[in-house]
């Protein structure tokens, strides 16, 4: 038999990690309010379902935007045939405008710099192919998005050099840490081609302050290495401080723009992951040129481009959407974190994203990676909540967990809170044997009228 390649047979896909074990547990036994109330609740999927109604409403009211309606079918032929990798100009213009609005109008984007990718996943991989050779490396502040290991490295051969951040300064990325990581890499003969950050951060849910962002730009400029900013959560900011894009910062700094690249997508801000819209926005002409040619491997369907061109050009809709999504995320975040606070669980203060960074260090039996995984297994298998352990984000300090809050309805959220409350309660009574404890979690959590219910305003 013709054997397969290394890429096909290695585990660069990362799906053997703990991050995905939780998914598997969910897939095997998914929660349903009536059909499977004892199932696993998915708190590990960063999906924004809070504003579907707005999108559905717009699509229903604007049939001309869809090529499959009586109103829109006259452009069907032209759209079906359109495969230009530059993308529909109207689509690029609409996305550029949307990106500007998502950043409070403080910066404008050039439609001609917009390059498509197969979702942000494809876009991140594409920018790596453009910027780095196999064996080169990128600095990545940790904790970082679990799938970066796959997206940035699997097919590209690019290495990730984590720059560990911890709670001592609220996971801030310091110049010192970057310099130290860079030096160590140099000593190990690792060629650092750039730095990639996610801002707002996944998994932390925080935005970078202006000064930190400036120091990052200054760092990469001094070293003449690239800066890739994954701004996929830009419009999920729901409380202050406002979001500062790298595009804004370079307007006021002396820096080589050829080093600056932004990754974007509509999967989080608009809740449209199914549309597969990834964007590479580079200030470097060569990268735009090269990236555009590579985009053939992940172009956005022309039908989708056409629909979004209309939707995102509707100023009234977009302005309202951005305000609403922010409001709803704020409310959801508040309810969930307040509920957790009531049972003594704190989270990192955050103002963005579809998740928060939960502190369960005090519940660890031992303050080690094993301790974290043991706690996590209990949460997945016994409490039946899929949360993501900090180690899957390369967090060096055990006990942190990422919890998503925008991918379920309010009732499900309540059930999740109840289960956590019950678990924390049981954990305090640590004399009782584990088995009994967990069956009680079930008994109490699945009944809405239970005395362990966390008081929480229904939203």
């Amino acid at each position: 038999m013709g054997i397969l390649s290394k890429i096909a047979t290695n585990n660069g896909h990362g799906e053997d990690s703990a991050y995905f074990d939780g998914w598997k547990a969910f897939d095997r036994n998914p929660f349903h309010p009536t059909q499977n109330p004892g199932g696993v609740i998915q708190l590990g999927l960063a999906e924004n379902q809070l504003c579907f109604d707005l999108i559905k409403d717009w699509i229903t009211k604007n049939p001309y935007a869809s090529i499959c309606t009586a109103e829109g079918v006259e452009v069907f032929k032209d759209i079906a045939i359109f495969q230009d990798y530059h993308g529909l100009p109207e689509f690029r213009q609409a996305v550029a405008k949307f990106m500007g609005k998502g950043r409070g109008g403080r910066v404008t984007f050039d439609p001609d710099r917009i390059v498509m990718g197969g979702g942000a996943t494809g876009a991140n991989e594409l920018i790596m192919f453009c910027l780095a050779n196999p064996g080169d490396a990128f600095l990545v502040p940790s904790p970082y998005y679990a799938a970066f290991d796959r997206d940035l490295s699997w097919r590209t051969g690019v290495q990730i050099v984590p720059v560990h951040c911890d709670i001592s300064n609220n996971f801030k990325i310091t110049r010192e840490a970057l310099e130290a990581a860079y030096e160590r890499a140099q000593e190990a003969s690792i060629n650092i081609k750039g730095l990639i950050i996610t801002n707002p951060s996944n998994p932390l849910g925080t935005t970078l302050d202006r000064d930190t962002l400036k120091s990052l730009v200054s760092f990469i400029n001094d070293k003449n290495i690239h800066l890739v900013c994954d701004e996929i959560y830009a419009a999920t900011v729901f409380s202050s401080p406002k979001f500062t894009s790298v595009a804004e910062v370079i307007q006021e700094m002396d820096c080589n723009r050829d080093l600056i690249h932004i990754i974007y997508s509509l999967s989080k801000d608009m809740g449209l992951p199914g549309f597969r819209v990834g964007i590479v926005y580079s200030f470097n002409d060569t990268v735009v040129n090269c990236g555009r040619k590579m985009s053939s491997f992940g172009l956005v369907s022309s039908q989708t481009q056409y629909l979004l061109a209309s939707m995102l050009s509707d100023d009234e809709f977009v302005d309202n959407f951005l305000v609403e999504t922010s409001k709803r995320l704020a409310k959801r975040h508040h309810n969930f974190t307040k509920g957790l606070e009531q049972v003594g669980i704190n989270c990192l203060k955050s103002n963005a994203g579809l998740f928060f960074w939960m502190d369960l260090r005090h519940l660890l039996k031992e303050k080690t990676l094993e301790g974290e995984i043991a706690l996590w297994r209990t949460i997945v298998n016994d409490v039946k909540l899929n949360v993501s352990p900090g180690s899957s984000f390369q967090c060096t300090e055990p006990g942190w967990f990422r919890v998503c809050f925008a991918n379920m309805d309010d009732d499900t959220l309540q059930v999740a809170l109840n289960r956590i409350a019950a678990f924390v309660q049981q954990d305090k009574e640590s004399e009782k044997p584990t088995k009994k404890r967990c069956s009680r979690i079930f008994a109490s959590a699945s009944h809405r009228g239970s005395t362990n219910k966390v008081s929480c305003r229904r939203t």
Partner: protein
Amino acid sequence: MTQSHRTTEPEHRKPTTATAMRLIVPLQGVVQGRGGLILGSLIPCALFYFLQFYLKRHRSPNPPSPSASSSNLAGLPRTSSRSTLSSRGSLGPVRISARGSSIAKPDDSPYYIGWNKFRDDPYDKINNPNGIIQLGLAENTLCLDLIEKWVSENLSDSIMGRDGDDLSISGITTYQPFDGMMELKVAMAGFMSQVLGQAVSFDPSQIVLTAGATPAVEILCFCLADHGNALLVPSPYYPGFDRDIRFRTGVELIPVHCRSTDNFAFSITALDQAFNQARKRGVKVRGILICNPANPVGNIIPRETLYELLDFAREKNIHVISDEIYGGSIFGNEEFVSMAEILEAEEVDKDRVHIIYGLSKDLSLPGFRTGVIYSYNESVLAAAKKLTRFCSISAPTQRLLISMLSDTKFIQEYLETNKRRIKKLYDSFVAGLKQLGIRCSESSAGLYCWADMSGLIPSYSEKGELELWDKLLNIAKINVTPGSACHCIEPGWFRCCFTSLTHEDIPLVIERIQKVAETCK
């Protein structure tokens, strides 16, 4: 309305071994035993290597054409580009990746030049009657009216599905399986079967869906070969393979030249020779990539040859990738046999055969980005599925296609009408060329014809071919694809795509070619 571009790439026409140090020649001295070991071989070897090394270091990058923008300069590592950077405070040239630099190079290939010229000056019967007529893109607009009619009669709601009585948005907005919705796989399996006249049934669980055939080919390559390995490709071949495979996988394409005397059919002997030559160079061949029906020639591989190919692949323990994207665009009388048919019928090594398909050609929906990998190899399917993370089909499009492909009656009518219309246009176009003394190779499929214009080229060489191509583009104002872009070893052949023309356009095209033909005689 922006003119559409093919997303294919020009090939980089460096000979495949140019950048590799030639190992074979110096060793001949040793083999032939002349001058003893030191004088006869070691010293010449050493000098030879130093010479190659010197040449390699000092080979200049392709000089940018005068009209190139400054965009290509920033990325070339050896160019001192400080003065051309518009940024402030730079320390020197910004380095992007080596593959990035080579891809971003100025578009000096006829493919791009033709493209860009067409884009700037596209023919329009009313608004731009002297513009460039596009014959360089294999796109089929002949039956879009049927599709438009179907859409208007079948989808009065928008793209959303229905959840009971309510329009359901979550079916298109939320994350879907990355390798495609099962309903679409089922519909696609049915469609592929219809395309083959029900000669074989396809199993939806062996389908992986991708955003176009372009990423499908790339994914297969990543799964079957490592960086530095090679695939054999009968040539002339589809220029886009150079992009699909050379851009990012690091896999080499070794053309296996076919001749007009054989109507460009490939022989196992030629494959064998190419395989052995590669091995001597220390290059591991991992598979053979065929396009059946072929592009650019349009011929169909006979059943016996497919069997021989499988035997060859088994003997060498390599894979076969069969790109069957034109399987539904057959207008001739020859029997088209899909690899799937052979594998269903025989007890053969199913694990080494993989089929590429898509809707861009047979269903005229290139904008929708729909490609298929069909494999019998569970490990390949498992790996390919994970790789679709980078290139999934947009969910609203999947919903639309599920509806369309499930309407088997419509599909049947479409496939039959499509073939008829292609044949009619083909006959007309080929007859027109014949009047000019230009004959085409025998073909029974595809959206193009393969024309022999060697009688018109000033010198029987690639240079002569490109001079003719240039005249056709700039004087006749038609954009055709020269054979050299397809790695054809015989100069003077041109691929002319005709399925985006109407019958009325053909006399105009012929007339324009005639003007140039007359100046060449």
